[in-house]
Every structure is written in structure tokens, then in C-alpha cells.
């Protein structure tokens, strides 16, 4: 009999795992809590380092889906139970399926920047997040701040909700550094006369072509990188944002006014997924993300046979890393069901 796999979460990891599993001859049900598939990528205008369109990327992934895959949207998974040699997966709306294997591709949630109270997100109108900026880019509208003015200066704050034990997140979210560089360049392309600043602790340009993009940001776009973590932001009379940071390479505090401040919100493990992993008895390590059976040898396996992981539910990843991880998870499932 054809084996059945339930994949939970239809972002890039879930879509790509499902496509591969279906191509390998399995029956696949892809369940998604939202009305549409695509996850965070739906809201992301352009991807680093190539500036490929988020929308086109999702469309290309969806195009690869075999028509045999059953896509169950608007269904929030509320129960997973291991029964003998199969799993019963059930949703909030009464949906239920039996599965021979389950792939968790539940992804991340964006750090809620309100929690960094001192940065003023939700209070000062010209403090926005990287996700808000992508929405603004995607809207195709003229690039203006909340006063309807072209900002003369734009600041990017790295590591918001990442590498910060004050918000209980010790981990690096990996993608924010390169996203800031990408978005800084996009801002400069829209407003060439603007001065753009990145406030960073370390620049982690780990991926291929990332360092090149960083160099381009400096050389071609004159984006300034100031090494220091933002301590606070406030608003002046005209709605500009005044930021305080230490220029750690000069060893002096620095004060600068920007017309728009962008917070590079990091990745967190979503509490809703935590409920599922608790139900399964899966280990989350101190950073909250799901711990694979072995980080080097079995990165898609969990300690429960038949439960697999792919994408950012096991830690922050770029889209390309997520895609590779999704394909590798499909192979791991095939191996298990052989």
C-alpha cells in the first residue's frame, strides 16, 4: 500500500519536502494553518543576495508540486498522537489523517519588536521592522517615512531579538545581517541621496556572495557600518528618531538622527509549535528550536522514529538552506519508510 506522509506547515520547507516526497512515490498531505501556502515568503519582497522576488520564488516552488498532493489549508494542527506504527494528526476544524510519517516544517515566528521597549517600536512612528520594510517595498509605493517625507537618513539595527539574553534569545538569527545589507542597498536604490547606516555587533556574512554584497554596499552605495548595539531610540520634535549607540571601534558614545529606523527582527520558535512538540515529547534545546537526533549525521531526524524536521523549526536558516534541508528531509523519510 502507498505510504502516507503528513507535512505540517506549507512554507518553502513544507512545499519543497512535499514536492520531493510526492515525486518519490509517496502519498502526501500538506497541512497549513493559513488560507494560503507560502508562509513568510509571501510577505517578503526580495531575497538576498540575488534580489530574487519572494513571490516568484514561491510560485516556482508551487509549480513543482505534483497534483496528487493534498493541500489542506486553514487548518491548525492541534493534535499528533503516535498509535502503534502510525500517527494520527488532527486539526482544530475536525480534520484528521493517519500518517506513516510526519514532517514538521512549522517554521519560525518573527521576533515581536515591541518587546525591545527601549527601541520604541509601536510608539515612535518612524521605527519599523525589516518585515514592515519588505511590505513597503512590495507595495511599490514611493518610499517615504510616516510623515510622508523621503528620509534623509535611514538606520538599520542588527540583532533585534537575537543575541540578546534580555529577551531570552541567545542565538543568532543568521539571516538578519545580510538582510540589512540587502535592504540598505534597496533603500539607496530608491533614494540615492539618502545616507544609510547599519548598527551592528558583528557582521556575519557567512553565505556565498554575502561578503560581495557587503562590499558592494560600501563601495557602490556608501552605506556606513557603525559597530555598536543600539541602546535606545527616542523621537525629536519633527518625528525623527534619535539613536544612541557606542561607536565601539572609536570607544565613544555616538548620537545620530535618522528619518527612519529599521529593526532587523530575528527568528524565534513559535509557542504554537511548542505545544505540538510537547505533545510528541520532542526536545527543544535552550534556544527553543527543535533538536535533531544528531546535528551532523541526522539533522532531519528526531528522537521519535517517524517524526522528521526541516526548515527553520530546527533553527534559523536562509531560504536556500531551507530548500536544501527540505530535500534532505524527503530523502530521510524515504529511507525510513523503505
Amino acid at each position, binding site marked *: 500500500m502507498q505510504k502516507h506522509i503528513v507535512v505540517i506547515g506549507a512554507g518553502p520547507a513544507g512545499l519543497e519536502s512535499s514536492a520531493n516526497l510526492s515525486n518519490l512515490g509517496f502519498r502526501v498531505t500538506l497541512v497549513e494553518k493559513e488560507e494560503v501556502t507560502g508562509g513568510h515568503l509571501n510577505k517578503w519582497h526580495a531575497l538576498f543576495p540575488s534580489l530574487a522576488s519572494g513571490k516568484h520564488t514561491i510560485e516556482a516552488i508551487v509549480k513543482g508540486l505534483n497534483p496528487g498532493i493534498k493541500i489542506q489549508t486553514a487548518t491548525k494542527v492541534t493534535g499528533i498522537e503516535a498509535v502503534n506504527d502510525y500517527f494520527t494528526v488532527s486539526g482544530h476544524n475536525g480534520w484528521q489523517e493517519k500518517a506513516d510519517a510526519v514532517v514538521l516544517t512549522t517554521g519560525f515566528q518573527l521576533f515581536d519588536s515591541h518587546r525591545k521597549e527601549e527601541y520604541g517600536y509601536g510608539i515612535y512612528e518612524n521605527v519599523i521592522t525589516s518585515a514592515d520594510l519588505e511590505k513597503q517595498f512590495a507595495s511599490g509605493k514611493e518610499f517615504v517615512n510616516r510623515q510622508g517625507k523621503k528620509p534623509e537618513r535611514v538606520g538599520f539595527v542588527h540583532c533585534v531579538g537575537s543575541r540578546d539574553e534580555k529577551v531570552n534569545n541567545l542565538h543568532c538569527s543568521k539571516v538578519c545581517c545580510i538582510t540589512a545589507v540587502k535592504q540598505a542597498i534597496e533603500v539607496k536604490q530608491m533614494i540615492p541621496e539618502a545616507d544609510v547606516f547599519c548598527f551592528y555587533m558583528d557582521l556575519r556574512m557567512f553565505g556565498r556572495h554575502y561578503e560581495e554584497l557587503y562590499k558592494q554596499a560600501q563601495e557602490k552605495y*556608501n552605506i556606513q557600518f557603525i559597530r555598536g548595539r543600539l541602546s535606545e531610540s527616542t523621537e525629536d520634535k519633527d518625528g525623527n528618531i534619535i539613536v544612541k549607540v557606542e561607536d565601539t571601534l*572609536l570607544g565613544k558614545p555616538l*548620537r545620530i*538622527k535618522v528619518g527612519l529606523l529599521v529593526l532587523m527582527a530575528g527568528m524565534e520558535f513559535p509557542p504554537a509549535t511548542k505545544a505540538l512538540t510537547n505533545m510528541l515529547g520532542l526536545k527543544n534545546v535552550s534556544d527553543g528550536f527543535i533538536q535533531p537526533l544528531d546535528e551532523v549525521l541526522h539533522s532531519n531526524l528526531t528522537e521519535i522514529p517517524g517524526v522528521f524536521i526541516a526548515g527553520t523549526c530546527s533553527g534559523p536558516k536562509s531560504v536556500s538552506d531551507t530548500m536544501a534541508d527540505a530535500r534532505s528531509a524527503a530523502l530521510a523519510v524515504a529511507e525510513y519508510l523503505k
Partner: protein
Amino acid sequence: MEKKVKNFGYSVTRDRQIDFDANNHDVGKIVALAEPTLHLCISCGTCSATCTASQFTEFSLRQVILLVRRGETKGLLKEVSKCMLCGKCQLVCPRNVSTRNLIIQISRALCNHEVSGSAMLKP
């Protein structure tokens, strides 16, 4: 009329904070135009580690570049004059910053700024 000043035994302390908005950024702009590799510096410090002057004085090209970028140019001309233009820094720079010319351009812009109040080069 001269203002009466009381002696309190203390006075207003100089603010250490770099006030980016209040600083003059002319020197930085002129230098970047004259030597665009200024933009490429990543503050790694290789230049100052190898610099002869840095071994015996407070001179640091890494810091000079940052000070120019932040508009903190007061007293910088004296700093820059410590460079002996040996060119060792240029050999080691991983980003191919043209450090010798950069020093020359910084000195020139600072001199112009000091003499004429503007960093603009006279034709």
C-alpha cells in the same frame, strides 16, 4: 558688556558623545571623492598593527579613517602627520584600500579646511 562669570570650583564637562548631526562632514566627503577606496575599510586594524608610527605613538590609521567618516576631525591633522608614508599598510590591507593616497588626501582636505574653513580643493 562682558558677562559676569561666577567661579563654582567646577564647570560644564566636555561631552564625549560623538554628535554626528552637529559634526562637519565636508572632509569625509572630499576624501571619499578623491580616494573612493575609503568606503572599503572594514576596520580590521591590519594597517595599524603593521604601522611603524603606531608602535611608538598613538597614531592609528584605522581610527583616523573612522574619525574622518564620523566628522570628528578636530586635531586630526596633527595625528595624520605622524604617518611616514612608508606604504607598509597598503601591502597588508585585505580590502585593497589605497592607504597612502588616503593619508595624502586626508591631510590635504584637513589643511584646506584649516586654512580656508572649507575642505574643498582650490583649483
